[in-house]
């Protein structure tokens, strides 16, 4: 195999084209309700427990970091506020996205990849059915839905973890922790967190589907595709996260600024 300099560009281009096809197929009827529900359940079932297990230490670490920093500034009263800000704005969508990509995306990619090498996808196209509409769209929407709810879940668990850590271990005052919630954070922070989760879910599912649908070269090809899909998703997630954060700060100035 010769690797040309334009190969990465081609990849990026066809991934983008695939995303556009998926977007277009989303509005084509009939919508695959059954597949959507099955996939939503499936993605939820592989992500909920790992996410909960990650969210608790995640909240605790943030409480530890922020608590220490804030003590140095002598602004302990704002500990709760800072923790909420960090968890809701950044930590929770990222944790959600990593788990969605790592657990949900890899499963989607492996499933579609093995269908691809068994020529099931070709057979489907020959039978006059578009696999993007039939298989990819329900998976992308299901992943977005699960990411949305998972993000809310992680936010709650993360904030609670932070609370327990701060109050029990760092001798914080429960009242001031909770009272300071709204000092720096405001409702749009939660909306942008949820919006991020939706976008991250879409990215994870589209990359996983793209890689799965283009797997080749037997069982090893599927393994490679899963591996690549997780790596590519992570890279895209952090770029998308940065862009969305930057745009959010332009649209909604931080409270009191």
């Amino acid at each position, binding site marked *: 195999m*010769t690797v040309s300099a334009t190969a990465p560009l081609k990849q990026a281009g066809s991934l983008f084209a695939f995303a556009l096809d998926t977007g277009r197929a989303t509005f084509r009827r009939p919508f695959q309700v059954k597949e959507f529900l099955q996939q939503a359940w499936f993605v939820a079932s592989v992500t909920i427990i790992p996410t909960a297990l990650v969210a608790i230490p995640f909240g605790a670490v943030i409480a530890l970091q922020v608590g220490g920093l804030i003590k140095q500034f002598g602004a302990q009263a704002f500990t709760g506020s800072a923790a909420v800000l960090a968890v809701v704005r950044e930590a929770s969508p990222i944790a959600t996205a990593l788990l969605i990509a790592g657990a949900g995306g890899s499963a989607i990619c492996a499933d579609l990849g093995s*269908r691809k090498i*068994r020529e*099931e996808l*070709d*057979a489907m*196209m*020959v*039978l*006059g059915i578009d696999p993007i509409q039939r298989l990819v769209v329900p998976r992308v929407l299901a992943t977005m839905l699960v990411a949305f709810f998972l993000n809310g879940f992680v936010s709650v668990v993360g904030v609670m973890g932070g609370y327990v850590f701060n109050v029990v271990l760092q001798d914080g005052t429960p009242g001031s922790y909770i009272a300071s919630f709204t000092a720096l954070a405001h409702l749009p922070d939660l909306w942008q967190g949820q919006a991020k989760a939706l976008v991250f879910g879409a990215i994870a599912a589209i990359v996983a589907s793209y890689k799965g649908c283009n797997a080749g070269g037997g069982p090893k090809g599927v393994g490679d595709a899963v591996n690549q899909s997780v790596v590519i998703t992570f890279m895209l997630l952090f770029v998308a996260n940065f862009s969305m954060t930057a745009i959010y700060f332009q649209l909604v100035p931080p409270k009191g600024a």
Partner: protein
Amino acid sequence: MGVEVRVEGLTKSFGSQLIWGDVSLTLPAGEICVMLGPSGTGKSVFLKTLIGLLKPDKGHVYIEGTDIATCSERELYDVRRLFGVLFQDGAMFGSMNLYDNVAFPLREHTKKSESDIRSIVMEKMEMVGLVGAEKKLPGEISGGMRKRAGLARALVLDPQILLVDEPDSGLDPVRTSFLNQVMIDLNEAFSPTFLIVTHDVNTARTVPDNIGMLYHRHLAMFGPREMLLSSEEPVVRQFLNAQMVGPIGMSEEKDADELAAEAGQELPPLPPIPIQQLPSSGMLRPTQREPGAWCREHGITPPPGSFATATVGAR
């Protein structure tokens, strides 16, 4: 009645590697054709190009006036309804049992009631000898059964053109003969146009009306079976008789030294042309020609002993 497939100047390459170039042939309506070729000559690629799963670099594939190579996605999906395709491993949907697999195209494309679907599905299952296995998942059955199930699914929309990718790979010779018989009977009953991709010489010698051969990135020859089976063309002759003497080597074509070493060797005489496998009825299929007809028309003496048991109507 089957549909004619006209291929003109078809060329396909992956990256800078040419798979085959300038392939032109016509699959006559209602006839059985076999596409032969050594491993790795792009036979499966050819088949996938015919249904538009792969886009050719150049050339056209005309089916009922639609050019598969250039038509829109929508037209492509319409034209594909004429096709039934049997993929190498059957390509059954792993999450559905055999019954649902075979019923799938009917449920997607027709508004038939479940009881109508049931009768059609059971009819096709019986045709391929899978009655009793409807509830099995594709993962639970043997490769041969998967192939037959794939055939049942390919048949369910009464296709005008059937493309079959290596029906004999991974099957024992007896099952291969049975599967060939099923295809011949189908052709007799519904006259769809068949294209079978294979490298099984026995299938190629006894089943088709026409044979084509892909070799060395081009179509070496395409024509009536008797034309190829009586051909002195080195590549065709070597392949159809599974010999080592000739231009085809182990990896690709032989180099000049190897060919020079073979120069003095006498080629074994052409074996007799076998008679075509007949449908179960024992009668000639509508598009089947009398044994030896082509040779007589073209003034070619078939190898001695050809058509030895060629009494039509008896088996």
